[in-house]
């Protein structure tokens, strides 16, 4: 079966594309799949840092495209999880160094050896996005529950639809259930109403993400935080398994009053 090529994109920067790519890739690898995470953010590479593989990068995918090295030489194998690979971006080049056709050819070259190819897309709607999206068949759109992020996600979804990508699924990242309850943050249903695409997962705001990012270890490798579980669930859903959405309130509501509140609550909100 040929590899599934999925672009992880958002439009707006800083919403968690790279974190999502690293964690979903690691989770899929944990499920026994052979996965390559491709850093398509030429000139601003970060995926290697988040995956904790920056000290092992020798070649990058621009070198592969320019035939400076072989594809196998540029792939960095993650020794912690079998089947997880990174194809890094060049840090000293710009997004003009690659064109959509070259990206398509690169993905075609990767396809026979992998089950999943995850493309970490740069922010924006210009060349970098078009290059990354060109090689993909499916898309994961990451947004945070903020109006600018949702607006940019809407723009990106429109562009992905016009490029014929399908399915396009949504990850809502950094949701704070307590803020949603207080009416200070967009709720899941508000976002889905605007974006009108399938939701694949909701990742709660979690300090563990910062810790894991700085330690260079995807959270899904250790599974000691709510966000890690959310990413693992997303990976399972990508594999076609029916996994219910997490009850995020159980992670955020702590203490005696929360317990009393929970006891008397008639309805549990599902996220």
């Amino acid at each position: 079966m040929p590899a599934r090529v999925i672009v992880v994109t958002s439009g707006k920067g800083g919403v968690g594309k790279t974190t999502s790519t690293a964690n979903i890739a690691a989770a899929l690898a944990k499920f026994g799949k052979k996965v390559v995470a491709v850093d398509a953010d030429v000139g601003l590479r970060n995926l290697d840092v988040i995956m904790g593989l920056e000290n092992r990068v020798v070649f990058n995918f621009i070198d592969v495209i320019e035939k400076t090295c072989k594809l196998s030489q540029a792939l960095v194998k993650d020794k912690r999880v079998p089947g997880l690979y990174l194809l890094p971006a060049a840090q000293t080049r710009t997004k003009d160094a690659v064109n959509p056709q070259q990206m398509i050819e690169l993905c075609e070259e990767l396809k026979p050896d992998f089950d999943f190819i995850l493309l970490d897309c740069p922010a924006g709607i210009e060349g970098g996005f078009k290059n990354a999206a060109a090689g993909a068949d499916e898309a994961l759109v990451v947004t945070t529950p903020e109006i600018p992020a949702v607006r940019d996600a809407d723009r990106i979804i429109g562009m992905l639809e016009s490029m014929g990508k399908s399915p396009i699924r949504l990850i809502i990242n950094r949701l704070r259930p307590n803020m949603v309850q207080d009416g200070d943050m967009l709720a899941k249903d508000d976002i889905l109403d605007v974006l009108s695409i399938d939701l694949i997962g909701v990742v709660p705001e979690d300090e563990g993400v910062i810790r894991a990012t700085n330690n260079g270890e995807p959270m899904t490798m250790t599974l000691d935080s709510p966000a890690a579980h959310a990413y693992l669930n997303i990976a399972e859903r990508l594999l076609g398994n029916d996994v219910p959405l997490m009850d995020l309130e159980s992670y955020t509501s702590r203490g005696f009053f929360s317990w009393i509140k929970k006891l008397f609550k008639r309805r549990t909100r599902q996220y």
Partner: protein
Amino acid sequence: MKIPAILSRFKKPDAKITFERTYYGIKFFLPESLSDDDLLRTLAGIHAGVYKLPENEGLALDFQNRACSGKLILKLLAGLVWRNGVKIVAWLSSNPDTKKLFALSGLNIVEPAQEINNLKHAAEKTLDSVDNNNEVINEYPGWKIIYNSVRGGQRIETEGDVLLWGHLNAGAEVIAGGSVIVAGKLHGLVHAGAFGRNDVFIWAGIFETPQVRIANKLCYADKQSTTGWLKTVLITLENGSPLIREDKFINSRMEEK
């Protein structure tokens, strides 16, 4: 022989105002070598019949590179526009300061688009054809129906009317020569009557946009002060101003739910 200063105002100016027939009426070229007084005097001297244009036509004043003052604008309005009842469709200038002044004064600084004329002819032709030849009726732009939401960055442009059977998301635009109906949420920008028609409307299932445009009018909106925010509304032009009416029938049913 040098003319004394006191008599110079009676001297016939050398530069002449020239005219050009255009698709929207007449364009006046006002030479910048004429002083403000000479300009006003020359315009006042033009036969009143010149200003009697058909109802759908107007006058464009091209000031070229003249540095116009607010005082001159007022004098032109009083001496030319209000006195002769003439419609000025464009105040043109290549001088940036003058252009800015015109824009600040709410005057139209671009020539009417050719589309107005094309549309006008299309409409006239359609009306004529009702009596003569039914086949030509299809030329009327008619309704454009969109069965899905329009996303940010997408733009719908049509000479006719628009029915959007979905949301108009923030950053999306509908530019229509006719009326616009947005069945879902109106977050984006709608311009109804974009080519000059005043008899158009905007109907929104849920009104939540910071700006709407009807004909040449622009209406800002916000949740604090605008009637019908987050409600079903009908927006029309009444006495030249945008008017937002809540759809009380639908809104009361929504509140019941």
